[in-house]
């Protein structure tokens, strides 16, 4: 079954390469979705079936939908693709790509110098994962819950729109209403 692993890895790499080179945001999102599905396949082949499930449900299902909603809200389409085409010149991407390639070559040399390590992945069942998560890593789970709470509150606060006042009369009316409200509270 090694062939499945190599195929999934190749799909993940190609799809990721397409993500960072597409001009249209929607095309990039679709390629990223394919890449995430390939990741899920890799996780499954590595014996982490629960991680594969989470990858599909949360990443490919929920987070990508958020991205697609934002792209729809901002109405990014042909103009954005045109702009991206203007921005993405070889002169722009050549330098950073070469430098990143150098860093990766160093990493490659380090990994290859450590010698062969062939193994058959151990299957970690969701039960073992749950036991570890709720015994040893309980504090981490609670911290993650607090992080998510903070993210929800922060997103609601940042995403709030200030009401645009079109005319000063409307503004006065609004202030009067606020005064009335304050009096009522007092």
């Amino acid at each position, binding site marked *: 079954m*090694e062939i*499945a*692993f190599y195929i999934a890895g190749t799909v*993940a*790499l190609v799809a*990721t*390469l397409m*993500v*960072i080179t597409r001009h249209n*945001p929607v095309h*990039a999102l679709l390629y990223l979705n394919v*890449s*995430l599905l390939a*990741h899920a396949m*890799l*996780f499954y*082949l590595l014996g*982490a079936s629960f*991680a594969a499930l*989470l990858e599909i449900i*949360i*990443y490919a299902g*929920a*987070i990508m939908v*958020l*991205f697609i909603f*934002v*792209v729809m809200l*901002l109405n990014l389409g042909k103009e*954005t693709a045109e702009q*991206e085409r203007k921005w*993405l010149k070889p002169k*722009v991407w050549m330098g*950073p790509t070469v430098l*990143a390639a150098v*860093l*990766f070559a160093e*990493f*490659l040399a380090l*990994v290859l110098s*450590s010698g062969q*390590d*062939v*193994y058959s*992945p*151990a299957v*970690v069942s969701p039960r073992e994962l749950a*036991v*570890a*998560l709720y015994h*040893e*890593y309980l504090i*981490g789970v609670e911290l*993650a819950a607090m*992080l*998510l709470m903070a*993210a929800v509150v922060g*997103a609601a606060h*940042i*995403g709030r729109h200030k009401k645009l006042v079109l005319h000063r009369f409307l503004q006065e009316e609004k202030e009067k209403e606020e005064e009335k409200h304050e009096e009522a509270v007092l």
Partner: protein
Amino acid sequence: MKTTVSAEVVVLLAGLLFALGIVGVIIRKNIIFMLLSVEIMLNASGLAFVAAGSRWGQPDGQVMFVFILAMAAAEVSIGLALILQIYHQHKSLDIDNLKEMNG
């Protein structure tokens, strides 16, 4: 169905995906694409964690992946809210428009 993989191939795959994410963050000027590239990098590190967990048959790798997932969800929700605000203020997603923040 018994799979055998070599550890360095998995780690190299994760490293290559991470490098692609770095390149994406650096060469793009559109904020949405930069956020997508950050997602790629998070996924690559998650792959490395899961591979390490499967190498030694411990659940810790998947636990770390769950934490990475929670962090990615939080980061995406905040990041997308910021992107919406930036678009409403500047009518553009060009990262260079934010230089007036004088950071």
